[in-house]
């Protein structure tokens, strides 16, 4: 897994790339929780995620819940097919706010 971050329209966007599995999900979790601890609104871009397992999904759930409690915005954008089919298996595709792109999310925020 590789990751990078960028700022866009009031969000910190965390780009995850490659395979998000048990060997690197603690890393992904740290990136997510660190960003939220800094008070950022966070979008996680999953467009280049070729594989994600339950430990990666757990990091996203933790991010979602942490943001909710703190009153920060959180969401997923550009979810790849591979990631989406795992989210669907977990019935999380209707729990997370999911948008095709950062732009769409910002547009919907209004």
């Amino acid at each position, binding site marked *: 897994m590789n990751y990078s971050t960028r700022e866009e329209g009031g969000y910190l966007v965390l780009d995850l790339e490659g*395979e998000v599995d048990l060997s690197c999900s603690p890393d992904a979790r740290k990136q997510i929780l660190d960003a939220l601890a800094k008070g950022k609104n966070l979008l996680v871009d999953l467009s280049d995620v070729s594989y994600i397992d*339950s430990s990666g999904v757990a990091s996203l759930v933790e991010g979602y819940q942490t943001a909710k409690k703190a009153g920060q915005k959180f969401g997923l954008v550009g979810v790849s097919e591979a990631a989406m089919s795992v989210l669907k298996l977990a019935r999380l595709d209707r729990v997370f706010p999911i948008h095709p792109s950062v732009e769409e999310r910002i547009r919907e925020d209004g």
Partner: protein
Amino acid sequence: MKTQKLLELRFQASADRLCLIRPLVKRVAEVVGCQGDLADQLVLAVNEACMNVIQHAYKGDETGEIVLEILNNKKKLLFRLKDFAEPVDLESVQPRDLDDLRPGGLGTHFIREIMDECVMGHLKDAQGNYIEMIKRIS
């Protein structure tokens, strides 16, 4: 066609082995006729079972050994995972209620959703546990 062992893999209970095993499981799935999304799901299920052994059976002890046997016949594909850890409490292996949103508790749910049969037990001839996961091939 009689049941044949396609192959057997042995590796340490370490998360960095998982990425090596996934492409093999994917190819096996494709070769026996599971294409596309189904092959990816089988990869996920086997990966989750390995993760559970790493995290719960061996509790993070990376010196533990995992054995993955893959067998097939015309009707089914069988993944048998063995560990040599202390016998686990089989009753405790339960997915979380999906409506009770919390991080974790998804692995066993994935396995049960994806596989047609799934049995766990204690090894007879050694200390340890096994999980057998069967996918019927149409």
